[in-house]
């Protein structure tokens, strides 16, 4: 039985460690914050210029000067600190962020990532994604195992324009947790009742068992 989205987020949260500084991408990765144990101290960075990001505000706490990288209104916490965009990406590029959890369109077995552009469709831009995957110590991808049309997203090679080359460390999908390693995509953990064959069937990448 494949993991639900909540279970995927909970599994991703288990990869966090006490004291970590973490950047969460827009969409499903944002929800990982809901699954962090109360006694674990994790500090969220928002690349528009903040550490120590808090949850959404109540209606009367809303502040136009306080948004996250997804342009959503947020709140501050006692540990919050603000800085400018150059300082924010100095932090990211300089390898000071422990982990980034991001979505993906495609991941290749060599760690290549594509998550910003589909040629022919409107191009919105990469935002901070290229900087994050190039600079953050560990890049974890949280995504559906397959595209909506059923096609594989874990590939031998990405055919969409890359966000970064050889940048992905781990992938979490509804089927399990995978690591980019020698010879391809290594299965670290499978969701209940998911077989290696199912992972192979639903992937184009070389799947390696331990």
């Amino acid at each position, binding site marked *: 039985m494949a993991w639900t989205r909540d279970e995927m987020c909970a599994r991703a949260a288990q990869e966090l460690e006490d004291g970590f500084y973490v950047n969460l991408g827009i969409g499903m990765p944002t929800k990982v914050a809901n699954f962090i144990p109360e006694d674990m101290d994790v500090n969220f960075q*928002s*690349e*528009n*210029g*903040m550490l120590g990001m808090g*949850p*959404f*505000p*109540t*209606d009367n*706490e*809303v*502040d*136009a*000067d*306080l*948004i*996250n990288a*997804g*342009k*959503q*209104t*947020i709140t*501050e916490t006692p540990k919050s600190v*603000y*800085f*400018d*965009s*150059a300082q*924010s*990406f*100095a932090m*990211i*590029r300089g390898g000071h962020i422990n982990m980034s959890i991001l979505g993906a369109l495609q991941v290749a077995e060599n760690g*290549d990532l594509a998550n910003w552009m589909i040629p022919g469709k*409107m*191009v*919105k*831009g*990469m*935002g*901070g*994604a*290229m*900087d994050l995957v*190039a*600079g953050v110590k560990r890049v974890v991808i949280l995504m559906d195992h397959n595209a909506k049309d059923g096609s594989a997203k874990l590939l031998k090679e990405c055919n969409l*324009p*890359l*966000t*970064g*080359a*050889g940048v992905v460390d781990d992938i979490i999908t509804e089927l399990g947790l995978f690591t980019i390693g020698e010879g391809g995509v290594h299965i670290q953990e499978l969701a209940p009742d998911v077989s290696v064959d199912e992972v192979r069937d639903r992937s184009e990448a070389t799947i390696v068992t331990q």
Partner: protein
Amino acid sequence: MSKKVYSDAKAALDGLLHDGMTILAGGFGLCGIPEHMILAIRDSGVKDLTIASNNAGVDDFGLGLLLQTRQVKKMISSYVGENKTFEAQFLAGELELEFNPQGTLAERCRAGGAGIPAFYTKTGVGTIIAEGKETKEFDGETYVMERGLTGDLAIVKAWKGDTAGNVVFRKTARNFNAPMATAGKTCVVEVEDLVEPGQLDPDGIHLPSIYTHRIFQGQDFEKRIEFRTVSDG
């Protein structure tokens, strides 16, 4: 003492605008954008602008207003979603677009303001962003060379400023305002609150007066929110 102080956006931009110029515009999304100067630039009718800004505003607010009036020739941005005018003009080939990764754009401005003509970064190596750019190996890793960026004019929004030009930003409205301010040959700052020298904590100033050539207090900031997300508390 108050030679930097102007009455409003129109006065502060007087003599600084010309067709074909490059403008660096602070803000992230609609947060911390110089909304009064954007309106004054629209009203001036100046055209063929190259604008470096992380985003392009929305259709009817922020830099979207200058797209509606077709005053923009080229955007240098990291993300231009949320703007249908942009999409239409870009797909019709009426608008040039140079994508910079967000951190590369910020660093290019910081470098431009700091007299650094080029620097190396891992960001974008192996992607289309690095195509046509020089690369170099350091300690076994490949980096791409990116150029410092400067502009004819930086338009910046801040919270407080003093009449000498020292400036303080508020929360995440700081964003690109600070690095872009340093990279403008001229920098004009609009503030919510203009105070006398000595009223800002000298240890807490984000933009030293040397970067601020002109400053004015804006009236009735709209400060529109792009995505109002709330919880039940």
